[in-house]
């Protein structure tokens, strides 16, 4: 590739929901849609972190492809025709949200994130009035051993934002996931209490990126526990420019 071509990436033209849009080569459908005012729901994706395509909320239809594609990791292609919402997609997204609510013990009324929770807001936006799947009510722990923060596994949706921000931005990799399937849960270090972690820098980035009330600051009321996430894309950008 000549230096010139790295400076001016090739422009792709495509359609999203019938709208003609242009994008740079390598851009993801999700970003291009958002730039054009088209909202695609996401839970595991967060600007500034690598995308993993795990929550499956951002699945979109692409003409000529039988499979649904995750918008957060699918690159645009010339002539692509993307549909971000359809009867089928709406139904699947509702089911994904219902599955998440049924999985652990999400009790919004007593949650520190009540009113500013991504999961709760997403459910409302998708017209959820109740959960059709039986609740599983698993026994989940709460790790309050850290001086400043609390981890409540009852409210975790395993989006792994905490894992990624700790690894990719803070560079500590304190968080990870243990176990398989429904038994998977986030851990600090080798599943030691968070308060005893040798690697945790107590930076609190994980708390800020957590979409639900799973990670919160001690002593903060519901009204105070709003999360600030703008720093993630900012840090990523600054580091890229170095």
């Amino acid at each position, binding site marked *: 590739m000549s230096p010139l071509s790295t400076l001016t990436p090739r422009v792709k033209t495509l359609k999203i929901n019938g709208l003609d849009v242009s994008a740079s080569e390598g851009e993801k459908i999700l970003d291009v849609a958002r730039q054009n005012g088209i909202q695609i729901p996401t839970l595991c994706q967060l600007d500034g972190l690598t995308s993993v395509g795990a929550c499956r909320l951002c*699945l979109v239809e692409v003409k000529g492809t039988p499979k649904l594609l*995750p918008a957060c990791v699918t690159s645009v292609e010339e002539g692509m025709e993307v549909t971000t919402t359809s009867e089928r997609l709406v139904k699947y997204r509702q089911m994904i949200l219902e599955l*998440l609510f049924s999985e652990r013990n999400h009790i919004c009324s007593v949650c520190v994130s009540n009113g500013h929770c991504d999961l709760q807001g997403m459910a409302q936006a998708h017209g959820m009035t109740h959960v*059709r799947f039986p609740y599983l009510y698993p026994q989940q722990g709460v790790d309050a051993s850290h001086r400043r923060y609390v981890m409540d596994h009852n409210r975790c*949706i395993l989006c792994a934002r905490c894992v990624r921000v700790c690894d990719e931005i803070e560079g500590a990799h304190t968080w990870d996931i243990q176990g*398989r*399937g*429904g*038994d998977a849960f986030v851990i600090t270090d080798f599943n030691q209490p968070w308060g005893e972690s040798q690697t945790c820098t107590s930076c609190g980035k994980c708390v800020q990126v957590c979409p639900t009330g799973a990670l919160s600051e001690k002593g903060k009321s519901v009204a105070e526990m709003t999360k600030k996430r703008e720093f993630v894309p900012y840090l990523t950008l600054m580091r890229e420019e170095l």
Partner: protein
Amino acid sequence: MTPEELQEQAEKRRAEQKDTPHQIRVCVAAGCISTQSDQVKEALVKGLSPELQKTCQVNGVGCMGLCKEGPLVSVDDTLYKAVSAADAPELINSLSQTPVQRLLCDSKAPFFSRQKKIVLENSGKINPEVIEDYIAADGYVALHKALAEMTPLQVNEQVTISGLRGRGGAGFPTGLKWSTVAKGAAGQKYVICNADEGDPGAFMDRSVLESDPHRVLEGMAIAGYAVGANQGYIYIRAEYPLAIQRLKLAIRQAERLELLGKNIFGTTFSFHVELRIGAGAFVCGEETALIASIEGKRGTPRPRPPFPAESGLWGRPTLINNVETFANIAPILRNGGSWFAGIGTEKSKGTKVFALAGKITNTGLIEIPMGITLREIIFDIGGGIPDGRKFKAVQTGGPSGGCIPEQYLDMPIDYESLAKAGSIMGSGGMIVMDDTSCMVDVAKFFMEFCMTESCGKCVPCRVGTVQLHGLLCRITDGTATMDDLSQLEELCDMVRSTSLCGLGQTAPNPVVSTLRYFKEEYLAHIQEKRCLAGVCKITVPHAAGVSR
């Protein structure tokens, strides 16, 4: 090793075998070992008089296929079944006298005569722990041919012409995959052999590795040459200790003879093979999860694209094929791609190894040409259903596959037909069920498997399989309603359409296929509170009006 030396080795070994008039072969693959074939072998070795030792060799060999009748022993051309250590003296006597009638196994039976062996051509004949045996059976000839006479492009061409498709299950054209990796970004590339066979009831790859490990190594080395890789990994599950042991030995032997390692056959081509032992996760059979596992990360799949062929192990172009796929490579190169393409059907070439399990007379390992019917496999080769029971269904493709009912028995075996019938070729597990099986219970078994083996990364698979399993439990315990049945169908569609990797995308298959062919069994559980096969214990049905 030079080609001449290889030739010499082969001649020497053949002459050695010729000089020994009598050959006793004892199966020492996992199936027969589990019925103490190792003791049989020991008894035979000890039982040979010094006189006989000069004229008779006792060898441990790989799988002879009819696992059900093990331990299997062949004395020259006579096959014996269910042999115990105590039978050794009689078998030794048979060398000079008449065969031991009570242990005879009919080697002319359809089980043996109807098979066609390419992958298993050496299984049961050569000693898997002796590289010279493999060399005497034309081993490493194909590798030499590729290196000495062919360009990588020509090797790819032959594989493409052969029409070979991935034997791991999905049936992706092997030649196309190889060419993609060959064309991938220049620099370091990798070849991975996927030996993480994990389907319940499947033991094809295990058997190949235990019976003929060099065949897989040779296939990998040829692949390395064709795609431009100098490093190979075999990702094998820890539950296969014997296969691991024999592979380790085979790698050491091949390296010692310079058939693997640096400058193979004096060319510039080098190829190293290392083992990576899986820690028991079924999902690590999924290629991106497998790659993550080799990299030392948590074995979870990632979205594709990019495909491993473009960006695989450590971000480099990576060829990843199944054991059986690699096992087909040497014969294809020896005999030419068009020879292979002449076997099988239009779109499914060659042969396929199947592991017969369940309610079938001849449980064991078979290899058949593509295109023969399920009926031939189950009733001719497999000997039909034991105990006078009636055939009900055959499950192919493991937890990702489906149950095929009687009306499809005359369908030819190929990738497309199996898919049309609602199942998949899969890696070759074949579980036969008779009328004592409850199909809802079968679906529940496979769903439980997927539920426990889900990696937990994506929501539909992690939670969807748990909810699907819950619904199936309610059906089998008699508390389900018709609403539950429609929720089951809806959720199957959702999990299949939205899951991240193949595990989740195919997890609903056993449910969908049994709903397609055996819906009356679901309805009987729900509406009549009755299990038609009498398997499910239906407790007191809950009061009417319950919505769940």
